[in-house]
């Protein structure tokens, strides 16, 4: 779908790009056209080929390893590495930021492009330019601050400053707001829009469809390695449902599973849980929190980034976070001690971390070994693992959770984010938990997989498992939970049955501790 009314010239044209990995076609004749001063979103489920396409564009996959042409600023380009694409003004900012935490903002901005002569860095010049660049991205921190001491939102801005220093003309952002809170995201989106006005085009990959709808001029949808369509946001009147339809090739009637909850009695209770920050003694990250979970109930925990949700969950799960100060945990009416992860697992508690890659999985492992890893004893006699049982059990999970892989012998790195998440879920389902704590269970996975994860959660609840779901996405909490707690600055500020909860009420309780309405 071409839009004729655009006045801007084409800056980039990727023509019929095909990229094959041995045995699989990651990209199949994908085309992408980006105009000057345009924000172009690329949408698609995980594994659709978005990032592969960007890696082709930025020279990560060098010329010769793919078929098709890249026409950039009117001529065919053949990048052999990132250095060459950056020299041409194409800069990619990856989802995992490439900043060195121990170095200062200035040092990071100029890393690899240090101003100076004969290897001697002119720090005065660097400092001056850093301040300029920071002003352009709206960051007023001291450029000498170590990057580890600024938040993720600001780190993202430093990345953009770094790109600006390279005279970027085409900025590629891979999930730029995935780790950001609402206000940081907004600031970033405003910045990207501002850059557009200054002649910098952006290609943005994001799963947050509301953001795309808000900021993008054009949207190209990729599905199964093929470019499906390109939409003009204004001319085509694109909304979220329209994008989703393109991405999954079908209409997702209801993103959240229909269910009638069969909720039992309270079986898990936490009283006056208080946890200290691991390093700073004065900081209490979780303060006097009390809550209950019933059998078969999905309890949502809403809170902004840094509110203490993850800290609460991890400190409960075998004191994996911070320093335990006080609090009691009761299960089935008896007080239990959860001093180590092994004890927690033994008491039927499972915790699915928000950080799949660094806390959830050993990325060197195969699917089947990952699935049984949290309760190896269940399939072992003495210390000897029964590999036959291991294969059978992982095969069962592969089928029941619909993990897309030819075989469970495959390494987990080969899976897409959604399928990796299913492996993590399988790993904890295998421990037969009575209480399953899910921390951002759908972060970074695509809509199709999200719907499947929701279904898995409801199925588990229907079988009587108590579930705590921590999430930053309010629609998800409202769609899946039976009851919702809100947390603000380490305190539980509100508790609402889902029928009485709406985004506005929740947001109010998530941003102030003034009210306490116990339903």
């Amino acid at each position, binding site marked *: 779908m071409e839009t004729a009314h655009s006045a801007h010239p084409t800056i980039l044209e990727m023509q019929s790009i095909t990229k094959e*990995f*041995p*045995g*699989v076609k*990651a990209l199949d004749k994908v085309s992408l056209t980006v105009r000057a001063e345009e924000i172009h979103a690329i949408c698609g*489920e*995980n*594994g*659709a*080929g*978005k*990032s*592969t396409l960007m890696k082709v564009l930025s020279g990560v996959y060098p010329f010769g*390893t793919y078929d098709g042409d890249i026409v950039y600023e009117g001529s065919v380009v053949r990048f052999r590495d990132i250095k060459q694409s950056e020299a041409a003004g194409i800069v990619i900012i*990856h*989802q*995992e930021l490439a900043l060195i935490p121990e170095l200062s903002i200035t040092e990071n901005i100029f890393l690899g492009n240090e101003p100076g002569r004969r290897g001697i860095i002119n720090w005065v010049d660097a400092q001056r330019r850093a301040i300029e660049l920071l002003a352009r991205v709206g960051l007023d921190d001291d450029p000498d601050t170590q990057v580890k001491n600024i938040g993720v939102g600001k780190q993202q801005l430093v990345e953009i400053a770094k790109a600006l220093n390279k005279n970027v003309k085409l900025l590629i952002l*891979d999930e730029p707001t995935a780790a950001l809170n609402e206000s940081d995201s907004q600031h970033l989106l405003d910045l990207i829009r501002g850059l557009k006005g200054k002649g910098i085009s952006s290609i943005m990959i994001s799963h947050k469809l509301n953001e795309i709808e808000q900021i993008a001029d054009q949207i190209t949808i990729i599905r*199964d*390695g093929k470019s499906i369509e390109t939409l003009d946001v204004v001319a085509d009147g694109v909304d979220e449902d329209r994008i989703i339809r393109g991405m999954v090739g079908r209409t997702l009637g209801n993103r959240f599973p229909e269910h009638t909850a069969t909720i039992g009695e309270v079986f898990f209770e936490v009283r006056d849980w208080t946890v200290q920050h691991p390093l700073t003694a004065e900081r209490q990250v979780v303060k006097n929190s009390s809550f209950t979970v019933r059998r078969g109930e999905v309890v949502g925990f809403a809170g902004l980034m840094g509110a203490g949700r993850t800290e609460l969950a991890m400190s409960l799960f075998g004191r*994996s976070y911070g320093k335990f100060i006080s609090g009691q945990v009761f299960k089935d009416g008896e007080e239990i001690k959860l001093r*180590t*992860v*092994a004890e927690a*697992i033994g008491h039927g508690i499972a*915790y699915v971390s928000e950080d799949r*890659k*660094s*806390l959830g*999985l*050993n*990325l*060197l*492992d195969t699917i089947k*070994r990952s699935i049984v*890893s*949290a309760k*190896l004893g269940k399939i*072992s006699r003495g*210390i*000897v*693992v029964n590999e*036959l049982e291991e*294969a*059978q059990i992982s*095969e069962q999970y592969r089928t029941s959770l619909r993990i*897309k892989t*030819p*075989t469970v012998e495959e*390494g*987990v*790195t*080969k*899976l*897409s*984010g*959604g399928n*990796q998440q299913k492996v993590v879920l399988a*790993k904890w389902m295998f421990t037969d938990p009575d209480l399953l704590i899910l921390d951002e269970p759908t972060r*970074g996975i695509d809509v199709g997989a999200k719907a499947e994860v929701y279904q898995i959660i409801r199925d588990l609840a229907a079988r009587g498992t108590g579930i705590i779901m921590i999430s930053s996405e309010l629609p998800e909490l409202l769609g899946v939970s039976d009851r919702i707690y809100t947390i603000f600055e380490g305190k539980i500020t509100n508790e609402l049955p889902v029928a009485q909860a709406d985004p506005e009420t929740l947001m109010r309780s998530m941003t102030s501790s003034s009210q306490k309405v116990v339903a």
Partner: protein
Amino acid sequence: MSAPGIDKRGGFDIRDLKSLFGGGGSLKQFGILGALVAIIIIFQIWTGGKTLQPGNIINIVQQYSYILILAIGMVMVIIAGHIDLSVGSVAAFTGIIVALAMKDWNFPWWAAIILGLIVGGLIGAWQGFWVAYIGVPAFIVTLAGMLIWRGGNQFIGDSATVPVGAGFQVIGKGYLPEFGPNLGVNNLTMLLGIVVVLILIGLEVRGRRTRAVMGAASAPAWTSILRVIVLGGVVLVAAYLFATGRVGTSFPVSGIILALLVVAYSFLTNRTTVGRHIYAVGGNKHAAELSGVNSKRVNFFVMMNMSVLAALAGMIFVARSQASGPFDGTGWELDAIAAVFIGGAAVSGGIGTVAGSIIGGLVMAVLSNGLALKGISSDLVQIIKGLVLLIAVGVDVFNKSQGRPSIIGLMTRNKGGGGGQILAEERTTSQVTPGGGTPDTAVPADLKN
């Protein structure tokens, strides 16, 4: 659904060939095994047949068994993400204590061996304590250990050489005894070879049955038969060579100790919860801890285990050289570490196998032995060994960074339909950097059933 190991067209599949050796083992191991075979053939030709003479292979086993024993412990240490530089000194320290225990305190040889293992265990507990519970990097702890136990050896032994008795010498110099009728071969050695072949057949049958029960596709039957023939043939030829050496020699006792350890530790690392935990801690410590693994205990165990094996290696060396000396075990740590890395382990931890490390150690052993047979002086041998280590690991790292197959992969790429799959498999192993890669996108998810 296409399963690996099956060529749907029924033709020759290179993966089947690969599965001949080590089933699901990495291509890299296969590559190293190929390199070992190549080196043996090259030296066999170059030395005019001396390499595979009975006397020489017996010599190789006796001379390198202690390095290979160290490599077993070292690969576990390296999988867990550590390193142990102290093994040579620990071996020397144990050696002198054992020698003195027999000489001055009249320990019988068997009690001395037990004492030696206990000494190794205590040293290991000491080092493991610092690594696991204090959190000092193993590099530092064992660098300190390298000095402490070397100094300890020379302090206790007064920098002198202490001889050991004949009973003790058996573990380093002994052979399987003569037994039964005189058939011109060492009967026990041949019997051992036959037993090993029978075990191989048994394992093969059991493996196929297990795979069938699992519903997993097995490689075609001919691969199993060929594998048994090839491996069994190698075992029988080796047994024959060992059995037909100079009268009074046969398969060395140190070789039997080594073989038992290889079997036991292969089992431990592959099939037990302990082994799984070692890989888990090395692959991703935080994820392991959040799965209920006690990473401190794992680290303590691998460090302690290493020192016990170092003590054993030290005793075998003392037995073979008939005395404990102040410079025993110098540089052993480097040989053991080299063997492990040639054998496919990753510096960052999480990857490595006992079998691979043994093969890596044998590569170095045959190389050194062959060069010595040719009368190449030890200075040059050192240079060559250093280059081999560098090139072996360098080629592999370079190929992976380029997304290309290793040398063996290149050689086999065009010979079979499944070659592409091998490349795919290797590609992903190269992308395994915890927290670094974006696996979502490496391969599309449309691997539909």
